C-alpha cells in the first residue's frame, strides 16, 4: 500500500499544469518522430534531450517530457508501417505484416485505431507491471555488491542485440568502440588516460554529447544524402468506422501481447523488437487456423503493437532499479538521469521518490493522452509526415546545437558533437549499429569500476566474482545470452526475413 501512496504523490507531480503540458508536447513530438521512417525512439529521445536542457527544465519535468517522447515514439512507429509498409522503427516491423494489407483493403483508419488501442493496452499492462515490480526490485538491489554488478553488466553486454542484431561481429565491434571511448578521462585511481593534457577531456566524454552527435547529427547527414529536398508520397486515410465488437475482438490478443512484451522488456538487452516479434508469433500459434495472419487480420496488428509498447515500459524496470538499461532508448534515458545527477537504483526510489513516481504516473497519463491524440488526430500526423525534410532538418539541427551549447557553454562540446556525428555516419554506412556504442560508453566505466572495487574488497582475490549465488546466476544467464543467439537467432531472423520487407531503420531498440 506504500506503493499506492507514492503513486498518488506521483500523480500530484505529473498533474501539475506545466508537467502535463510537457507530457503532451512530448507525446506529440514522440509520435511524430516515431512515425518518420528512420527516426526511432532512441533517436527521438536523443534529439530532444538538448531541448530539455536549453529550456532549463526541472529534472522531473525533463524526464516526464522525454519518457512521453519515448512512449509516443513507440505509438508513432506503427503509422508509417501501416500506411507505407515502411516501419518507423524496427519494433514496428511486425506491424507491417497485417497493417499494410489492412490499409490496402481500404481499412487504414481501422488499422490505425486498432493499433492505437492495442498500444494503449500493452503500455497500460506494462506500466502496472512496472509499478508492482520496480519497488521490489529496488529493494533487492541492495544485495548487489561490486561482483554482482560486474556480472550484471557482463550480462547486459552478452545479450546486447544478440537476438535482433543482424551481424554479431559488428555488434561486438560497436561495443568495443564504445568501451574504447569510455577509457578517455581520469580513471578511478586518478591516472589520466588519453586526455593529452586537454582539460575538457579530464572527465571523459560526455554521454549526452556523444549520443546527440551519433544519433541526431548522423541522422542529419543521412537525410542530406538521401532525401534532401522533396517530400514523401501523399498518404490517404479513409473515414473511420470502428465498432465495439472490433475492439472486443482484439482485447485478448492485446492482453497477451502486453504481458509478453513486458517480460521481454525487463530482460536487459532484449528490448522492444523481441517483444513485438514473440507477441506476433505466439498469437499466430494460439489462434491457428482461426486467424488470417498476413492478410490483414486486425489481431495481427494488435499483437505486435501491444508487445512493443509493453516492452518499452518493461525496459524501464532494470534501468530505474539497477541502472542497467534494457534497450537503446533506456540507455539514452539513463544518460539523461546521470547528467541530471540522479543515480538510478534503490536510493532513487526513496531520495528522488517524487521524480521516479512522477515519471511513472506520467507514463500512465501519457498513455491516455496518446490514445486521445492518436485516434482523432491521426490525420494530422499523416499530414505532418509529408512535410519535406528541408524544413524539418534545420529545426532538428538547431535544437541539437543550442541544447548542447547550453549544457556546458563551451564551443569545444559542439566540435565534439559534430565529430561524433561524422563518426556515427561512417559507422552507419558500415552498418555497425550505434546502440552498442552507446552502451559501451555508458556501461564501460561502471563495469571497470565495479571490477576494481571487487578486487579492492577481496584484496585481489578473483574468486569474489563468483562468490555469491546471485553472481553465479548472473554469470549463467550471461553465458546463455552469449550462446543462445547463435542457436535461436538464425531461426528467428529467417522467420522475420521471410515475412517483412527490409527495414528502413538503421537502429534496433
Amino acid at each position, binding site marked *: 500500500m506504500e506503493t499506492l501512496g507514492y503513486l498518488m504523490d506521483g500523480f500530484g507531480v505529473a498533474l501539475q499544469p506545466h508537467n502535463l503540458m510537457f507530457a503532451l508536447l512530448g507525446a506529440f513530438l514522440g509520435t511524430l518522430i516515431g512515425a518518420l521512417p528512420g527516426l526511432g525512439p532512441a533517436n527521438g529521445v536523443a534529439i530532444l534531450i538538448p531541448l530539455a536542457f536549453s529550456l532549463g527544465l526541472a529534472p522531473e519535468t525533463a524526464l516526464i517530457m522525454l519518457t512521453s517522447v519515448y512512449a509516443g515514439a513507440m505509438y508513432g512507429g506503427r503509422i508509417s508501417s501501416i500506411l507505407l509498409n515502411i516501419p518507423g522503427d524496427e519494433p514496428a516491423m511486425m506491424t507491417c505484416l497485417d497493417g499494410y494489407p489492412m490499409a490496402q483493403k481500404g481499412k487504414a483508419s481501422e488499422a490505425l485505431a486498432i493499433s492505437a488501442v492495442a498500444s494503449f493496452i500493452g503500455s497500460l499492462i506494462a506500466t502496472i507491471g512496472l509499478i508492482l515490480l520496480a519497488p521490489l526490485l529496488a529493494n533487492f538491489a541492495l544485495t548487489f555488491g561490486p561482483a554482482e554488478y560486474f556480472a550484471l553488466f557482463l550480462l547486459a553486454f552478452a545479450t546486447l542485440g544478440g537476438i535482433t542484431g543482424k551481424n554479431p561481429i559488428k555488434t561486438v565491434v560497436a561495443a568495443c568502440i564504445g568501451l574504447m571511448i569510455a577509457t578517455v578521462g581520469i580513471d578511478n585511481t586518478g591516472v589520466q588516460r588519453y586526455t593529452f593534457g586537454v582539460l*575538457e577531456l579530464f572527465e571523459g566524454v560526455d554521454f549526452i554529447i556523444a549520443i546527440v552527435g551519433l544519433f541526431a547529427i548522423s541522422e542529419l547527414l543521412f537525410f542530406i544524402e538521401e532525401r534532401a529536398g522533396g517530400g514523401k508520397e501523399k498518404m490517404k486515410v479513409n473515414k473511420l468506422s470502428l465498432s465495439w465488437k472490433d475492439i472486443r475482438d482484439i482485447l485478448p490478443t492485446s492482453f497477451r501481447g502486453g504481458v509478453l512484451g513486458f517480460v521481454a522488456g525487463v530482460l536487459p538487452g532484449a528490448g522492444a523488437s523481441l517483444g513485438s516479434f514473440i507477441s506476433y508469433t505466439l498469437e499466430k500459434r494460439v489462434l491457428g487456423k482461426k486467424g488470417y495472419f498476413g492478410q490483414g487480420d486486425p489481431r495481427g496488428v494488435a499483437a505486435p503493437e501491444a508487445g512493443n509498447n509493453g516492452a518499452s515500459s518493461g525496459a524501464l524496470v532494470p534501468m530505474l532499479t539497477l541502472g542497467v538499461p534494457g534497450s537503446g532508448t533506456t540507455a539514452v534515458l539513463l544518460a539523461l538521469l546521470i547528467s541530471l545527477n540522479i543515480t538510478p537504483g534503490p536510493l532513487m526510489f526513496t531520495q528522488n521518490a517524487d521524480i521516479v513516481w512522477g515519471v511513472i504516473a506520467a507514463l500512465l497519463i501519457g498513455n491516455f493522452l496518446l490514445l486521445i491524440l492518436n485516434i482523432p488526430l491521426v490525420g494530422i500526423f499523416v499530414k505532418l509526415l509529408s512535410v519535406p525534410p528541408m524544413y524539418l532538418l534545420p529545426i532538428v539541427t538547431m535544437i541539437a546545437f543550442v541544447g548542447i551549447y547550453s549544457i556546458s557553454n563551451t564551443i569545444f562540446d559542439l566540435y565534439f558533437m559534430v565529430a561524433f556525428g561524422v563518426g556515427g555516419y561512417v559507422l552507419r554506412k558500415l552498418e555497425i549499429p550505434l546502440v552498442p556504442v552507446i552502451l559501451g560508453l555508458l556501461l564501460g566505466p561502471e563495469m571497470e569500476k565495479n571490477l576494481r572495487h571487487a578486487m579492492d574488497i577481496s584484496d585481489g582475490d578473483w574468486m569474489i566474482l563468483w562468490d555469491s549465488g546471485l553472481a553465479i546466476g548472473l554469470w549463467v544467464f550471461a553465458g546463455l545470452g552469449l550462446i543462445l543467439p547463435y542457436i535461436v537467432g538464425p531461426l528467428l531472423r529467417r522467420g522475420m526475413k521471410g515475412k517483412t520487407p527490409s527495414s528502413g531503420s538503421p537502429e534496433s531498440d
Partner: protein
Amino acid sequence: MTRFKLLTLLSLPLAAVTTFSSTASAFEPEGKVECIAPSDPGGGWDFTCRSVGNVMQELDLVPANVQTINMAGAGGGVAFAHTVSKRAGDDHLLVAASTATTTRLAQGQFPGLTADQVNWIGALGADYGIIAVAADSEIDDLNELMDSLKEDPRSVKFAGGSAKGGWDHLKVLIAAQAADVENLPRIAYLSYNNGGEALTQVIGGHVDAFTGDITEAQGFMESGDLRVLAVLSEERLPGDLADIPTAREQGIDAIGPNWRGFYMPADVSEEAQAYWTDAMDTIYESEEWQSVMTQNGLMPFHMTAGEFEEFVLNQINDIEQLSKDIGLIQ
C-alpha cells in the same frame, strides 16, 4: 610527521569582522551578473550558484537576475581555466567553489593553474564530513574503527563519493592520521560516482564504512540504516544532529569542513571586490540565506576577502602536504 593544520585555521574567529563594510564603495553592478557553476545542473556548485543568486535578487544586491551558467569539466578545471584566461577584469562574474576546488588545486589537477590567479571572495556555509557504518555493523565507535586500522590498514574498507585522493578519501586519511594510524596509503578507499551510490553499498553490507558529508547521509540516518560514528566538526552540530559525537570528543583531533563559496577573476577593481565581499556578508546575515542553510543542511561557516584568501591558501598547503605524506602526489 606534519600535523594537519586545518584545525588551527578553523579556530580563527568565524564570525569575521568585516573590514570592508565601512568604505563607501563606488561600484554597483549593472545589468547581468553571471555565476558559473563548474558542473552539470543538479550538483553542489549548481545549487550554490542558484540559491545564492536567488537570495541576492531578494536582497536587491543585483540590479536584475543572476544567470547561472553550467560549465562542467575536469572537476571545475575548465571553469577555472576559463576564468583565468578569458575573464580577467570581469567584475560581474562569480564562480562557485568548494573544498573540492582547493583539493584539486593542491594536487596539481588543474595543470598550470594556481589559487593566486583568482580572487577568493567568501564562503557562505559548510557541510561537515562524517564517518559512518551500517546499523548492523560490529564497529561501535571511531576508536574501535581506528584500532582495527592500526592492526591492519586493509581491515576496514571505505566507500565515498569523490575520486581516489579526493575530499572524501582525504577525510578518512585526516582522521586516521590524527589517530596515529600508520601506513596510510594502504587504507582501502572505493570511489563511487556520488555519496548516494557509496551509501547504498555500505547499507547493503558490501563495503565496511562510509565517508562523506553529513547532508548526504541524512536520509539513511533517519531510516535507521546508518550509524554515524563521528562528525568531523569542531563542535556538535545543531538541531537533530546534536546526537552525533564529534571525532574530537572521541580523542581524535580531525576536522573536515566542505565549505561552499566563490571566487572572482583576477584584475577586478578594488571597489568591485569590496562590493562583492560586502554582499557575501549581507547574504550570510540575511534571514533568507539562513533559511536556505537550514533547509539544505548547511552548517555555520563564514569568511570573506583577506581572511578567506588566507584560509584557502593554507588549506591548499595542508592538503598538498597530506597528499605528499600519503603518496598521492610526489
